[in-house]
């Protein structure tokens, strides 16, 4: 708190025009509290011993940003007392993890304190925060952005990354340094300003320093990664690609092997009115890059491997989400969006939207470096891998088709079918378990009673012979726009091979929205599962009780 006071005072006295400091300033903020009261529910395996006295979990944050012309500053407060079930116990604590100040002009931008940053697609650097995962790898240090001439942007960052509430001291994690340069040729060269073909080139370099204190291995104290990227657009087509390379980086993530890392991500898209198509390809080989080589959980990532799979929002469709495998994967995705025109036989009065999506992720092929060393043996080079070979081992496959249709002024509907292959052994670590092969179907119907009142009904089915077997889900939501909503929902695991686990997971919710504030109360059961954002996942344990979410911003 003392630090915060000094920070605020510095802000106040550093400006010579005290009155402007108040009158011309702008202050923004956002707040959220997620709380849950847990109750024992023996039928779904929650006993007093599971709760272990922690009957309440509360996660909360507040962001406040002060802006005065080219100057801005902000703080972030967080309190996890105690953290909600499923969040890392290291989250427990409260305080101001982030404070920053920034000065921005057309030529230069300087930030001190905690900041978020991304170079290109993030293959070598991405610092970000994701509240639903309890993830924050912000950098505490300095960032400088230079725009010397139109079309050229240079960025430099250095600092240490956030690791829950643990202060950086005595080299307890690495130091991150990075540079990024981006050249927009069309902006750089006047004669090309309005050219139909547009080209942006970028290059990034990131280096990590961490002292070698390991008695078992000779470890590199400086590990660098370099990436180059291009974005070329011509008319309705766009092609983007980025390649990243990392030198030897033995770590807990790759079992302390000394092989270099590589990653490539490419995307070709076409877009016109009513039609969009995108094809994406990705190869990842040993590209986990963390600022502490000893960490193997969701923390201290320097880079980010973007997933190229559809993110599903319906509960059963999202039951088996894909988690990126930084040690190796080859992925492809094709997405087609088409709007059948209004007035046609299939389009009807309002048109019909069709979204077709297919994605598949396989392992890379690995071979022994010599006859006597098994693949991925720690303290060795690890393995050899042919860049273009795809393993037969499928991690994930998702084919889905969605049709959305506004039938008339009162009715609209969404229908979706999904065929899924999910290697639960690799993705969730359930070794020896058979991959989940599932068919999922859902229908979502909205009936507009009046301009303000509407009913929404969801029905979903997940059919599989693996894992927990078949599920059915139903939801009914009544909305009084723009303030109230009431929901009752149930997920029923009627096909669970364990009869005792053929349980209903029911919830009742009520929500109130006013301006930028939202309050929601939910009572019921939450089934065990996985929640993923951007291919980064956390386990969600089964729970039962009353939860509240309150958010507001100004």
């Amino acid at each position, binding site marked *: 708190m003392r630090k915060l006071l000094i920070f605020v005072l510095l802000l106040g006295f550093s400006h010579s025009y005290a009155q402007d400091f108040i009158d011309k300033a702008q202050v923004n903020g956002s707040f959220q509290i997620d709380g849950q009261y847990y109750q024992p529910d023996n039928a779904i395996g929650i006993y007093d011993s599971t709760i272990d006295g922690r009957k309440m979990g509360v996660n909360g944050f507040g962001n406040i940003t002060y802006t005065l012309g080219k100057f801005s500053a902000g703080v972030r407060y967080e309190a996890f007392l105690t953290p909600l079930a499923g969040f890392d116990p290291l989250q427990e604590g409260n305080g101001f993890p982030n404070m920053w100040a920034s000065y921005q002009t057309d030529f230069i931008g300087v930030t001190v304190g905690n900041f978020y940053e991304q170079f290109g697609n993030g293959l070598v650097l991405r610092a970000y925060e994701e509240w639903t995962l309890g993830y924050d790898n912000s950098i505490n240090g300095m960032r400088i952005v230079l725009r010397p001439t139109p079309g050229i942007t240079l960025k430099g960052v250095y600092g240490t990354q956030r690791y829950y509430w643990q202060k950086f001291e005595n080299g307890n994690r690495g130091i991150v340094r990075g540079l990024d340069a981006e050249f927009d040729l069309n902006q750089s060269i006047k004669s090309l300003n309005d050219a139909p073909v547009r080209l942006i080139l970028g290059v990034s*370099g990131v280096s990590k320093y961490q002292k070698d204190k390991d*008695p078992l291995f000779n470890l590199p104290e400086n*590990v660098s990664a*370099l990436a180059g990227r291009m974005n070329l657009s011509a008319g309705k087509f766009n092609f983007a690609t980025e390649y990243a390379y990392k030198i030897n980086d*033995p770590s807990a993530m790759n079992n302390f092997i000394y092989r270099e890392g590589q990653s490539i991500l490419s995307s070709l898209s076409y877009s016109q009115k009513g039609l969009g198509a995108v094809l994406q390809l990705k190869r990842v080989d040993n590209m986990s890059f963390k600022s502490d080589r*000893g960490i193997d959980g969701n923390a201290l990532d320097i880079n980010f491997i973007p997933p190229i799979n559809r993110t599903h929002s319906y509960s059963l469709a999202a039951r088996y989400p894909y988690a990126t495998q930084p040690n190796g994967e080859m992925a492809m995705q094709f997405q087609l969006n088409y709007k059948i025109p209004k007035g046609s036989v299939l389009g009807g009065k309002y048109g019909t939207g069709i979204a077709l999506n297919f994605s598949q992720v396989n392992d890379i092929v690995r071979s022994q470096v010599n006859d006597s060393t*098994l693949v991925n043996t720690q303290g060795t080079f690890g393995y050899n891998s042919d860049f273009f070979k795809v393993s037969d081992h499928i991690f994930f496959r998702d084919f889905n088709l969605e049709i959305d249709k506004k039938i008339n002024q009162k009715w609209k509907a969404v229908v979706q079918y999904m065929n899924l292959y999910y290697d639960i052994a690799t993705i969730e670590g359930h*070794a*020896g378990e058979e991959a989940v092969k599932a068919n999922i179907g859902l229908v979502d119907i909205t009936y507009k009673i009046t301009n303000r009142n509407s009913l929404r009904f969801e029905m979903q089915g997940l059919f599989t012979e693996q894992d927990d077997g078949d599920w059915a889900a139903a939801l009914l939501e009544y909305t009084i726009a723009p303030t109230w909503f009431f929901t009752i929902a149930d997920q029923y695991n009627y096909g669970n091979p364990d009869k005792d686990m053929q349980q209903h997971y029911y919830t009742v919710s009520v929500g109130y929205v006013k301006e930028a504030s939202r309050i929601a109360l939910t009572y019921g059961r939450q089934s065990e599962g996985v929640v993923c954002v951007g291919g980064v996942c956390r386990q969600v344990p089964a729970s039962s009780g009353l939860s509240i979410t309150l958010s507001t911003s100004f």
Partner: protein
Amino acid sequence: MLMKIKLTIAVLTLFTVIFMAGCDKIDPPYINESGGGGGDDADVVQKVLLEDYTGHTCVNCPAAAKIASDLQKLYGEKLIVMAVHTGFFADPMQPPFDTDFRTNTGDKWRTDFSIVSYPSGMINRGLEGGRIAGKGQWASRVDAAMQETAKASLKIETNYTEANRQLALKIDSRFLQNASEKYLLQVCLVEDSIMAPQRNNDPSVGETPTITEYYHRHVLRKGVNGVNGETISSTSIVANETYTHEYNIPIDVAYNADRCSIIVFIYREANGEIVQVEEAHIK
């Protein structure tokens, strides 16, 4: 235009310099052939306890056990390992995973120290860098703990009677300096090399997904003097005074007495940090 070309060249040069300067390319051998330092030649040697929180269906746990074993080879008797089977991955399941290695002591420690992911470790239950350490942190943490100066010594005398499987224990604790804070003595029974199946996802450690004939090392069997041990002295600790604790415990017939050991450690009540540890075979 010339200025832009110069700027571009300057930026690319800077990138190259930073990339080259920021690289440590390591050539074989990758494994450190020296090491094993710490725990000086003083009369009282600082020993280190590595607690490996594990379970028989935890796929990453055999790789962690291998790291513990490699570290023991490096540090010899100065490193004591105890495998605590607890949590979801230790639950008995359908055969062949029906073995129950769980203990009340281990379960209590798991909740007390908020261990939720496996494998997790604690090195002398030290707080430096966070109490819980992932397997990738064990080596550096063990090495750091070895550099500490010993504050106490432990001596274990065992007297095992085969006929009635009774073990008589005499434990002498001696501190090198006076201390006003409270210390506790924890006594544990462990059994080594129990063969039972183990899930595994690391082919370099063993067969996947299950190592059928896996030797579970240093398995915690019970807390001899409760889950949190007992106070060494109700009054202030006096330097070089010997505090003696004696126990008589039965050894369960299911345990192989030839492979059973006693692990004893002294820890601070205030923060839980272990200041000394010792191990002795019961036979």
